């Protein structure tokens, strides 16, 4: 296992200043700071609800005070790799909803795209502004060695967590101003401005003048509601719910105290299935009836575009390196984790034989639900899971259990290494923008590899050191 802070008994270079400072500060003061940080989070109301668990819809996500640090050169590589991926994924989306060259060329199997639940026939042939579908691409990256990074998955719909990137930094700067004045840490606070720039750049054809932008949320009961309101606030745009919007004469309007006001760009944080009950799920009360017709005729831009989900499907994931070669003529800068597709007979056989060593995921699942972590599971759990795979092989993929890197983390027994992953947020509009930072998630249980906040994960601030 790669420990990001320590190698061969030596503190690694990016962490040296931090370790010196922690030694000088002492454990008592650090423990005190931990309590202060929690109070701050609670007071500000940064919370995260977990679906299906009931109880408090405003649970706090555990925040770990020890930052995760990347050097400038490590970041340069990540940045190039993430941007490359974001470009290829968007090109792929435009392609599959138009001429489907990649399918004709035999690079990606047609069934995988057209029979995919996330493929949206309703948007075939529509040209979204700037041909961008996924305007915010969250790329989940894990590290297994000093120079070894893997992409675990792509999130092309509406990846959440960016508010933690911003708020974690706020809290850290409030708690440890001396560290920030001493070290040269890349700031992350330009993200909301860049997001706004990106959203403005995708104004629809019919929009005249400065586009009116809104954030569309399912409401205060949603687990990521804090993030929705935070982003709307930081950008200075309205946070709306479906009931605030309506369609009239080919345009979208919001209900205001002055009467109807036109809306040009919708950054929606609700799923495709819910955005328009006339086009998708008729029982949805979260969306706006008629929205898709307006979208089709260029009266409104939707971010991310309906149908973008087909690019971040776990079955499609395995083809992303091929996409990069096909569309960009480049070699992928960041590698995929080697993946067995249970849809293939050979792969299925291997997976069933090696279940205790593998991580198996549902192709269409997300958030760490319904996955099997072989090494952490009992024989019975593996056997039950094997039955599920056999019943529907094409619904599953498997990956080797990676020795995820670990970072020092506050735990009950003191400071101990815990496994981490990383999600940078790449913005795609008139330009491809990437804020130097991201969300580091940490598995707080000893030995656990599951970093999802719904499964006992926490978060850390991520520092990119300036050159």
């Amino acid at each position, binding site marked *: 296992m790669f420990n990001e802070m320590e190698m061969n008994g030596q503190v690694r270079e990016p962490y040296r200043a931090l370790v010196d400072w922690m030694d000088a500060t002492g454990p008592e003061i650090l423990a005190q700071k931990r309590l202060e940080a929690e109070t701050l989070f*609670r*007071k*500000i*109301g940064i919370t995260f609800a977990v679906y299906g668990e009931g109880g408090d819809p405003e649970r706090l996500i555990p925040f770990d005070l020890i930052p995760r640090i990347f050097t400038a050169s490590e970041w340069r590589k990540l940045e190039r790799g993430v941007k490359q991926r974001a470009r290829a994924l968007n090109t792929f989306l435009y392609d599959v909803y138009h001429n489907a060259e990649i399918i004709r060329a035999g690079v990606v199997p047609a069934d995988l795209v057209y029979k995919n639940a996330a493929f949206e026939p309703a948007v075939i042939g529509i040209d979204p502004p700037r041909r961008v579908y996924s305007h915010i691409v969250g790329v989940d990256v894990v590290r297994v060695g000093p120079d070894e990074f893997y992409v675990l998955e792509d999130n092309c719909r509406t990846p959440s967590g960016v508010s933690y990137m911003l708020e974690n930094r706020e809290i850290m700067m409030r708690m440890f101003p001396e560290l920030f004045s001493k070290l040269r840490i890349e700031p992350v606070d330009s993200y909301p401005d860049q997001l706004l720039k990106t959203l403005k750049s995708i104004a629809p054809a019919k929009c005249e003048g400065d586009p009116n932008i809104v954030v569309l949320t399912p*409401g*205060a009961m949603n687990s990521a*509601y*804090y993030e929705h*309101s*935070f982003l*709307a*606030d930081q950008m200075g745009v*309205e*946070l*709306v*719910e479906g*009931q*605030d919007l309506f369609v009239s004469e080919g345009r979208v309007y*919001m*209900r*205001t*105290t*002055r*009467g*109807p006001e036109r809306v040009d760009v919708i950054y929606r944080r609700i799923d495709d299935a819910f955005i328009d009950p006339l086009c998708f799920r008729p029982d949805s009360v979260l969306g706006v009836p008629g929205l898709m017709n307006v979208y089709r005729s260029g009266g409104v831009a939707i971010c991310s575009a309906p149908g973008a989900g087909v690019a971040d499907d776990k079955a499609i994931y395995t083809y992303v390196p091929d996409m990069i070669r096909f569309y960009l003529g480049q070699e992928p800068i960041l590698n995929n984790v080697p993946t067995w597709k249970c849809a293939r007979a050979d792969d299925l056989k291997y997976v069933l034989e090696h279940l205790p060593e593998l991580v198996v995921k549902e192709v269409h699942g997300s958030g760490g639900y319904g996955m099997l972590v072989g090494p952490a599971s009992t024989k019975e759990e593996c056997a039950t899971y094997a039955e599920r795979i056999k019943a529907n092989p094409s619904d599953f993929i498997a990956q080797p259990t990676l020795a995820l890197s670990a970072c020092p983390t506050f735990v009950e027994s003191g400071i101990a290494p815990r496994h981490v992953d990383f999600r940078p947020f790449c913005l795609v509009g008139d330009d491809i923008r990437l804020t130097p930072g991201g969300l580091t998630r940490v598995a707080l249980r000893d030995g656990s590899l599951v970093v999802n906040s719904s499964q006992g994960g926490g978060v850390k601030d991520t520092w990119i050191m300036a050159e």
Partner: protein
Amino acid sequence: MLSRTAENLFWLSRYVERAENMARLLEMGYRMALMPAAGNGNRSEWRSVLSAAGCAEGFDSDNTELSQATVSDYLIFNRDNPSSIINCFEYARANARAMRTAITQEMWEALNGALMELRRTAMRNLAKTDLPGFIDWVKSQGALFRGATDSTILRNDGYDFIRLGTFLERADNTARLLDVKYYVLLPETSMVGDGVDNYQWTTVLRAASSMRAFHWVYRDDYSPWRIAHFLILNPFSPRSLAHCTENITSHLERLARQYGRRHAVHSMAVDTYAILNHGDMDEIFSRGLHEFLSDCLQRYRALSEAIAETYYFGGQ
């Protein structure tokens, strides 16, 4: 601004004001109960507190014995009582959370902090062992929220909706408070020099946190006429109907200026203000204080509905 946001702001400030008024009513009951009982020892102070709070029916349906402990618990912590202080703060915070972008961090922290504190068991103990201490705490939370609002929020239409909520709720509460105790203010029943009655009138002032202000304006003459005047017609008294209505009118005017449109609601407010501005206490008493107050309550209800309709609360 979004209509839903305006509606949330309006109700948010109404709930905060209501919580504070509940606390003031409790203070009134607490003080009256400290007086020796009048007549045959029939203690009615907690009953009048419940009536003034508009909670008498709800309380009675629980068949609880009438005492400081039961009434204060009902008005502070009872989850089934929609106007209980804890519910007011719950609703206020839920409204705030539904439109975090429309309020400032300071306002959010004031509301969030109040509710977090109120949910602690320590607060239940405080209300039991030291009711005045608890009442002071509630009042300070209201003050904190209004102070945070006053010093941080943009003076745009959102501010006007917040203030409209505050003053409509306050006017409504003052009118209710007077309506429940109006009989102690009737000149016919007043017996000059009767210690108990005198004390009852002053409790009305205390419930409106207006004791000291009253002194400054009228010195020490606690005649019922003056107390009623102070809480109804006096434009300088911060909880009087006249003052509240003046503010309602001016915030509606601000909205009309910002939006460039006047509506029926504007003349409704002006009409009410004119009645209070040109009102005369003798006339009000001769027509009947209760009738006058009922008419005012009806007018505030209608104003609240007209605001909702004019600015498209609940869709358009």
